[in-house]
């Protein structure tokens, strides 16, 4: 085979590979765009003032979703309040203090396994542990604790990864100035790792906001006449509302349900995009 035909063949193979991999990557994007466009197309008509300012009427066939949005915000607020401190502190321990021994390996293994547990199992666990055993009853706090268990592995891992990316030089510089380990961590290492930690936390919480199974048995209700008024109150939530309408309301209002889905998707996307944007701004400012 002549040299020129061999290079021509190689070039063709290269071009084919580029086209095939590119097409597959594009098809993934296409699916995402299709889902988004489909939800917007079906749900956009529902978004009006009534939809955001009123509660559901006629078992959800009419009216709006105000208590549902508020319930989800309360739930995720409580989950964030529980997850962030525990997750960040645990991540700090693993990245900065944990010795390399059996206990540390056991902790890591437990976290990996927690991340792999199906969300319905968390729902059952929450029912047993928080609703019944701890006596919180079906409530925002019980559901938030359940979602916390589910979100913690994401936040811990994100924190640990973010901390590990901070160059060792920076810790050394602080220690060499006579700073203690603790001061080094909260003055230098944590602020430098903040963008990574916050992005990870937001992705974890966004996922929690869309979960149905963990809140199914722990506090979400089909309908409430008033807004939730405290951590022990029951609540309505976006994903559970969609599930309940579609499965148990004959003649459910298609437009309102697509509208609810659109609100959920928009809320999660806006927060995720803002987190990504903020992170890229921080990245530009801070280069290692």
């Amino acid at each position, binding site marked *: 085979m002549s040299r020129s035909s061999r290079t021509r063949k190689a070039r063709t193979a290269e071009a084919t590979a580029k086209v095939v991999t590119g097409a597959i990557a594009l098809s993934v994007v296409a699916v995402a765009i299709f889902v988004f466009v489909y939800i917007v197309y079906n749900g956009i008509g529902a978004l009006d003032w009534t939809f955001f300012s009123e509660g559901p009427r006629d078992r959800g066939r009419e009216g709006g979703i105000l208590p549902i949005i508020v319930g989800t915000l309360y739930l995720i607020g409580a989950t964030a309040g529980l997850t962030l401190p525990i997750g960040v502190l645990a991540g700090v321990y693993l990245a900065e203090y944990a010795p390399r021994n059996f206990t540390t390996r056991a902790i890591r293994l437990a976290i990996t396994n927690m991340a792999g547990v199906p969300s319905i199992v968390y729902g059952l666990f929450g029912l047993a542990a928080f609703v019944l055993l701890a006596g919180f009853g079906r409530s925002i706090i019980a559901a938030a604790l359940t979602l916390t268990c589910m979100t913690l592995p994401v936040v811990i891992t994100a924190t640990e990864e973010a901390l590990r990316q901070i*160059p060792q*030089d*920076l810790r*050394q*510089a*602080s*220690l*060499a*100035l*006579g*700073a*203690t380990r603790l*001061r080094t961590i909260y*003055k*230098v290492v944590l*602020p*430098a790792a903040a963008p990574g930690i916050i992005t990870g936390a937001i992705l974890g919480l966004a996922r929690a906001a869309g979960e149905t199974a963990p809140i199914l048995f722990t506090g979400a209700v089909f309908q409430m006449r008033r807004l939730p008024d405290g951590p022990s109150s029951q609540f309505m939530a976006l994903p559970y509302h969609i599930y309940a309408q579609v499965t148990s309301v004959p003649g459910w209002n298609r437009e309102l349900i697509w509208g609810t889905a659109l609100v959920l998707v928009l809320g999660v996307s806006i927060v995720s995009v803002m987190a990504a944007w903020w992170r890229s701004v921080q990245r530009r*400012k*801070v*280069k290692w």
Partner: protein
Amino acid sequence: MVSPLLVTGDGTLSYGAGSVTLPRADAREGAASKAADLQGSFSLADVSVAYGRDRVIEGVSMYIPPRAVTALIGPSGCGKSTLLRCLNRMNDELGNVHVGGTITLDGADIMGRAMDPVELRMRVGQVFQRPNPFPMTIWDNVAYGPRTQGIRKRSELDELVEESLKGAALWAEVKNNLKKHAFELSGGQQQRLCIARALATKPEVILMDEPASALDPISTQQIEDTIAQLKDSVTIVIVTHNMQQAARISDQTAFMLRESLDEPAHLVEMDETRKMFTNPDDARTESYITGRFG
């Protein structure tokens, strides 16, 4: 190769294969009485370092005079940086490092329980190989050490920041931009910022681990000028791979060598830089300095 420490009549301290010429006792006392506040001298006696079971340094004894530049030279892997880290106990942070022997700073044992490593590191600053400013403003970088010491007053901090930046010969370039992010500075400026940051805790000694090896020649020149300015007020111990640099900036030079991987590194020779570079006592020193190995 453990043999007793010998101090011979002419002030030569021998240990094993290495021998260290100390400044004559009377000369040292004379210097000390001339300026009673002279501080920042180290005495090392039979210092050894082991990483786990791997003995990397053994039997190093030397005197590091105050307010002078002492250079540590030697081929890669000869334990220069490890020895440097003994002087501010940064080896403690690595874990599984054992340091033996005695190291005293102005007569006080720095490895004993009485010495808190945190306090020691405020007296013995360090500048690292690669510039490593904190991801914050120039002002915050320099004020970090004093704030760690508990200084809160803004005016006092301002004063320390200015003084330290002047000491590191960076003030003129940044005085109008103290709120600028440190990462916007050039590499050479960043390294001088790190020197300023180390100066801000008012240390008696600054350890420098190849501070110019990541910099271009002009920045290197500026760092060397800064060192020359600083040595009147602070003791400097510098590790360098660059023989010309050691010859240009140091008053004393110590040559370390690890003859083979099976044995720990040791101090071959230490003397005034001029003598080390013109007429060293040891043949190995001469062949290293003239570039025959290393």
